[in-house]
C-alpha cells in the first residue's frame, strides 16, 4: 500500500523573486528619464509598507499575536518587521486582549502619546466589545475610550485573521488622504473622545 506521504523529490529551484515582494508603482505620468505622480500616493505607499506596530497585549489574544509575529505567519512580510515599544515611534496601536476598566486610562495614555498619523487595530472580541467578560470590571470595547480603525473578530482570532486586519489597516493607510488628519470630521471624531 502506498504511503500517504509525499516526498519533495523534485525541489523547485529557489527563485529570489519569489521571496521579495515589490510594491506596485502608483499611477502617474511616465516618460524617458522622469516619472511624475502625486506626493500623496508616494507617501501612502511608503507608509503602508513600513508600519511600526505597538503591541498592547493584555491576555490570551496576545498569544495569537506572538504566533503572528513568529516565523510561521511572519507579520514582518508586510513591512511591520519592527515592533516599537515606545508609543512615540509607532504608527499602529494593536490592542489584543481584555482591557479592564482600571487599564483603560493607561491605554488612553498610550494612544495619546502616539504621534499623528496613528491607527488602531482592535484584535479579538474583548478589545472590540468586552467579549465574554460582560462584567462590572471590564471595559466593554476599547472604542469607548479611543477611536478604532479596524476590528478583528474572534476569541481568539487566528493569526490569519490578525494578518487580515493588518492588511485592512494597510489599505486604509494607503488610501487615506494626507489632509484627513486636519479635517473637521476627524477633529470632531477625536472631540467626541475628548482628545484635542
Amino acid at each position: 500500500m502506498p504511503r500517504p506521504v509525499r516526498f519533495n523529490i523534485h525541489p523547485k529551484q529557489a527563485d529570489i523573486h519569489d521571496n521579495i515582494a515589490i510594491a506596485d508603482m502608483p499611477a502617474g505620468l511616465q516618460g524617458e528619464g522622469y516619472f511624475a505622480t502625486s506626493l500623496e500616493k508616494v507617501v501612502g505607499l511608503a507608509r503602508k509598507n513600513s508600519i511600526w506596530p505597538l503591541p498592547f497585549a493584555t491576555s490570551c489574544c496576545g498569544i495569537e499575536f506572538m504566533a503572528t509575529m513568529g516565523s510561521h505567519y511572519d507579520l514582518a512580510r508586510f513591512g511591520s518587521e519592527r515592533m516599537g515599544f515606545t508609543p512615540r515611534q509607532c504608527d499602529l496601536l494593536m490592542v489584543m486582549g481584555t482591557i479592564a476598566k482600571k487599564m483603560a486610562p493607561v491605554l488612553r495614555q498610550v494612544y495619546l502619546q502616539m504621534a499623528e498619523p496613528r491607527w488602531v487595530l482592535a484584535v479579538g472580541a474583548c478589545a472590540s466589545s468586552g467579549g465574554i467578560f460582560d462584567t462590572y470590571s471590564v471595559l466593554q470595547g476599547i472604542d469607548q475610550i479611543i477611536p478604532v480603525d479596524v476590528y478583528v473578530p474572534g476569541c481568539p482570532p487566528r493569526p490569519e485573521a490578525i494578518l487580515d486586519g493588518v492588511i485592512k489597516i494597510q489599505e486604509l493607510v494607503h488610501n487615506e488622504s494626507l489632509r484627513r488628519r486636519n479635517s473637521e470630521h476627524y477633529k470632531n471624531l477625536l472631540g467626541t473622545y475628548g482628545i484635542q
Partner: protein
Amino acid sequence: MALTNEYIQQRLQEKFGELVTGVEQPYGMFTFEVPKSHNLKVMQFLHDDEALGFRFLTDLTAVHYPDAPGRELAVVYHLHNLAENVRIRLKVFTAVTEPDVYTATALYQSANWMERETYDFYGVNFVGHPNLKRILNVDEMDYFPMRKEFPLEDQTRIDKDDDMFGRGGHIN
C-alpha cells in the same frame, strides 16, 4: 501532641464559653462563629496561646447572604498554625446596614490588603484600618459589586441583546 479540632474547640469554649457558636467541621476544617464585637479578642487568643499558635492569616473575605436579616454580611478569617499545619475558619456576622467590623491589621499584617479587598467588593467597614480604600476596582466605582443586589453585568453597554447575553437573570 497533635492539635485536634476537639482540643481547639475545648480551649475556645473554656475561654469564651457561650460566645463560640455555629461549630462545624466541613471537610474536617474546624469552623466556628463569634459575635463581631469579639473577633479581635478571639484572634488574639488564638494567636498568642502557646498550644494553639495560629500565627498566620491565610485568607480573609466576606460573603453576602441577602436573605438573613441582621446577618447579611459574613466576614470569614482563615487562620493557619504553620508549625502543626492546622487550619481553622472563623466567621463573624454583621448587618448590611451597619457593616462595621474591627480590623485585624494590628494582629496580622497580611490583613491590610485583604481587608481593603473585602471593603472594595462587599463594603465591610473595617474600623481602625490604616488605609481603607479600594484596591482592585477603579476608584470611581460607587458601589460594592459582589453584593447580590447589584447586577454582575456592565451596565454601560446598551447594544448587547439581553436574551443573547443571558442578562437580566436573578439568583432567586
